[in-house]
């Protein structure tokens, strides 16, 4: 039997790897891939808590479904923004996107 803490520590590791990707990558699409890893860690946590703490209530899975929908929306809008910026400035490097920075 796998203890709940193993799932939680795996999710924490996945989240931290995604965090490193978000902070350290230069390419904006690679930053978005880090965000996807972090979202997956969150969903693992939700499903693990559902299975171990209240498997008779379905609420945990419903939350996971909502997170899936939000992840799809985030990916589509994020990639559209990156493609739009690439068209205008011919670059996908996150450091170059500094129009709003002062």
């Amino acid at each position, binding site marked *: 039997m796998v203890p709940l803490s193993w799932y939680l520590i795996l999710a924490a590791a996945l*989240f931290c790897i995604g965090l490193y990707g978000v902070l350290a990558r230069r390419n904006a699409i690679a930053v978005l891939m880090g965000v996807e890893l972090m979202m997956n860690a969150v969903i693992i946590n939700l499903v693990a808590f559902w299975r171990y703490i209240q498997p008779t209530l379905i609420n945990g899975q419903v939350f996971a*479904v909502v997170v899936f929908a939000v992840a799809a929306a985030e990916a589509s809008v994020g990639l559209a923004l990156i493609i739009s910026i690439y068209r205008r400035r011919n670059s996908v490097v996150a450091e170059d996107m500094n129009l709003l920075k002062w």
Partner: protein
Amino acid sequence: MDISQIIFLIVAAVTIISAALVVTSRHLVHAALWLIVTLFSVAVLFVLLEAGFLAVVQVVLYIGAIAVLILIAMMLTRKAMSDEPAQANSQWQISLVVAAAAFIGLAGLLNANAWPGLTTVDLSGSLTQLGMALVRPDEFVLPFEVASVLLIIALVGAIAVAGEKK
């Protein structure tokens, strides 16, 4: 150590190694392919947690839609990064320290707590239960509809932002 623990450890190792390759791979298309491996092993974790429907959604939505979308966006912006020498920015060392510190803190916190063990429950009706919970007015119909409206707004917004302007 029983069989489920061995399977979990193998899947966890695949998840962690492929996720590490996602954030460190020099070639971005390789990183996207490793992302697919990570997402697939997370789907295997959902199967281990007896959430079969979410495993299917993970494969169809994450691998079938989001990963392919990322690959297509990569192809559309291919010229931009192919001749760049460095894929990590100047703050990558401090990012590594921050991520490692966050993991150590979280792992210590999670280990210190006494979590409930796994109970054997009959989960054969959980898919029906999930479907009913998403459309029942006294349960989650409102969040479900809000999520669908959010998806429509996101799709319209994506088309408006990325569409060619004359």
